[in-house]
């Protein structure tokens, strides 16, 4: 299996020098505005020389003076690996700009729009003190509809991802605690508006930015300091800009596919107190007592990560049998062996072990988060593997959860049953790899896997998982598209095109939905707009099988040619020769990459003898 750990240039690095290193080390989301502004200025000076950043064109639309926030946002976006172009729009005129199709906003051609609303942009004029419940409901519905109208208007002009803020709680309580009791208080109107908004965004496929949570985290009374608005029209306290910008950067990173996927954990003093090799099973602190309880709480948090689809791995300097004993025998142990995707307990150095873990799971080093209580281990990994995120752990285990959660390494934009099953899927894959290692003949291995594939159209049931696969896949993705569910549904509705999911199972288990193809009509040909496949099922013949189905679909649509496009990124080099392997010929070079053509009038060989179809091929 290809080792992808060495091939990815870290954003910002020239050779092994991370030009952003000093800024990264100095940057702290909770630092006051003044520090953020200083770092932002420092960044501006070096930014032209920083390589390997992903371009991002983002329009941030809101009321107030957003220029200073934009400076801080740029800093955190760059640290996340973006080269941002930020459009702010004319002061106080974002509504006009959305409505006017000739406005500078659309001329800017953003690839993302952030409706940077705050509580100041929401009022409920019809709701007087003591108002009827129905008046309250109507006011909330009206307020939510206003934002929905902006999304739809934006979408008609430019179908791109939209980020919408929800609204922070008011700091001032006119009645005191009574505000929380009555439906007509601004406090409760805002809370219920946020709930309505969270449903509305799901319906319209808009990403919700939880500004309300950031305001609470920062502290409502500090957030709402009125003088910042009166003096210079800051949307909220400038000292909160770092926190919001950092969260936004992580959020956008997740939207573009760079959220982390796996936590690699040390054992001694990370999952329990003490050293099991010295203290023995009875001597480690886990369960009773303040420290023991802190470690249990940390394990519970890790379990919740695993339940939502984040992989857990162990990387510990310990005797394997002694380490496993804790999981098998300690009564207070919450994390179990079946929760662990890869268990690495030996006396090798952790840098090699981390590389091995990434290779075993076939994920990049840049999807790992390494958690270790030992500052020396942390520093070693940071310098040897700068792609791995290594949060600075506090000395008090009671703070472990808070610190790991605050790192926002695992921002999510969706959740599906596959997430729940992910650890099981990876463990099954490990069994497959063990079987492969035991087989000397690859042909026998593939035949013995007893593989069965299935495919189907983009129906409501499969759409979420299809969009999720497009959003998360970086390696097998020649065009790196990130279509949302709504966009996929629209593409599927085009009768001249073809959108399909593919699943695969073998004798070890069911991989589930592992491939998506989007073909779009282009003249008298069909262009492969998107072709993704999960890294779990590389090199088993599924690519060839999917390709044959594409050819059948194209012939059925009476199309004579297939067009493939390869847009190289730092991550999709594995598919640089994909079209060539499938028999396409290079047709030309375009701005973003290469174009390949396949003439469908000649016969296409069946290159996939080891996978059979569950249902007989294509219906319509």
């Amino acid at each position, binding site marked *: 299996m290809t080792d992808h750990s060495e091939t990815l240039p870290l954003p910002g690095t020239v050779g092994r020098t991370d030009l952003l290193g000093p800024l990264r080390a100095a940057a702290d989301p909770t630092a*006051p*505005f*003044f520090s953020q*502004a200083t770092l932002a*200025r420092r960044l501006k000076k070096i930014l032209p020389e920083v390589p390997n950043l992903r371009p991002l064109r983002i329009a941030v639309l809101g009321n107030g003076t957003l220029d*200073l926030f934009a400076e801080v946002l740029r800093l955190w976006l760059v640290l996340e690996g973006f080269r941002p172009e930020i459009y702010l729009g004319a002061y106080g005129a974002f509504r006009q700009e959305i409505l006017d199709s000739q406005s500078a906003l659309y001329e800017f051609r953003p690839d993302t729009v952030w409706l940077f609303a705050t509580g100041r942009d929401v009022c409920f004029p019809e709701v007087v003190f003591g108002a009827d419940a129905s008046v309250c409901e109507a006011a909330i519905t009206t307020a939510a509809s206003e934002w929905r109208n902006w999304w739809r208007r934006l979408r008609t002009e430019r179908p791109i991802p939209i980020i919408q803020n929800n609204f922070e709680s008011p700091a001032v309580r006119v009645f005191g605690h009574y505000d929380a009791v009555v439906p007509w208080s601004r406090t409760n109107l805002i809370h219920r508006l946020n709930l309505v908004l969270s449903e509305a965004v799901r319906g319209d496929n808009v990403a919700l930015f939880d500004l309300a949570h950031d305001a609470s985290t920062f502290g409502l009374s500090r957030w709402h300091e009125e003088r910042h608005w*009166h*003096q*210079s029209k*800051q949307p909220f306290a400038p000292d909160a800009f770092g926190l919001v910008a950092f969260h936004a950067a992580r959020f956008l990173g997740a939207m573009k596919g760079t959220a982390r996927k796996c936590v690699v954990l040390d054992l001694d003093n990370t999952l329990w107190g003490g050293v099991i090799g010295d203290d023995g099973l009875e001597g480690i602190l886990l369960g009773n007592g303040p420290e023991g309880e802190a470690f249990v709480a940390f394990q519970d948090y890790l379990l919740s990560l695993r339940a939502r689809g984040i992989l857990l791995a162990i990387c510990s300097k310990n005797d394997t049998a002694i380490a496993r004993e804790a999981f098998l025998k300690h009564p207070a142990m919450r994390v179990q062996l079946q929760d662990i995707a890869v268990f690495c307990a030996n006396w090798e150095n952790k840098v090699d072990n981390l590389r091995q873990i990434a290779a075993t799971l076939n994920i990049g080093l840049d999807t790992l988060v390494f958690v270790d209580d030992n500052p020396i281990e942390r520093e070693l990994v940071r310098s040897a593997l700068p792609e791995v995120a290594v949060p600075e752990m506090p000395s008090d285990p009671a703070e472990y959860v808070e610190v790991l959660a605050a790192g926002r390494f695992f921002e999510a934009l969706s959740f599906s049953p596959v997430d729940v099953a992910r650890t099981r899927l990876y463990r099954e894959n490990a069994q497959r790899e063990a079987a492969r290692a035991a087989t000397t003949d690859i042909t026998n291995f593939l035949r013995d896997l007893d593989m069965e594939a299935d495919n189907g159209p983009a129906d409501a049931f499969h759409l979420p998982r299809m969009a999720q696969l497009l959003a998360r896949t970086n390696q097998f993705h020649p065009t790196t598209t990130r279509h949302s569910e709504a966009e996929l549904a629209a593409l599927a509705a085009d009768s001249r095109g073809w959108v399909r999911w593919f699943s695969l199972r073998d004798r070890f288990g069911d991989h589930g939905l592992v491939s998506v193809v989007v073909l779009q009509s282009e003249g008298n040909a069909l262009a492969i707009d998107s072709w993704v496949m999960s890294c779990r099922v590389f090199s088993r013949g599924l690519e060839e099988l999917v390709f044959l189905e594409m050819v059948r679909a194209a012939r059925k649509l009476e199309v004579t040619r297939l067009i493939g496009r390869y847009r190289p990124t730092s991550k999709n080099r594995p598919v640089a020769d994909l079209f060539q392997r499938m028999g396409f010929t290079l047709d030309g070079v375009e701005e973003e990459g290469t174009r390949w053509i396949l003439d469908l009038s000649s016969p296409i060989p069946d290159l996939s003898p080891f996978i059979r179809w569950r249902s007989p091929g294509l219906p319509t």
Partner: protein
Amino acid sequence: MLDVRRSLLERVQRVFHEALDDDSLEITKDTRQADLQEWDSLFQITLILAIEKEFGVRFGAKDASQLVSVHAILDLLETKNVQP
């Protein structure tokens, strides 16, 4: 120049240098907004917040609008009885 005012000036100079990330800028007791290219209305906001943080003071809206020269900053800091 009084010792108090001189040591206040030194701290104000440091604030400018850090905020603009440039130790080479010449900031004197006579420097005005018009003298410094980087001192635009946006930097004004950063400057006010930085001065507040450095000296532990709060400026009201009226005060903030008057801080358009180093001289004005020093005057205002003195009225707030800032410890040098």
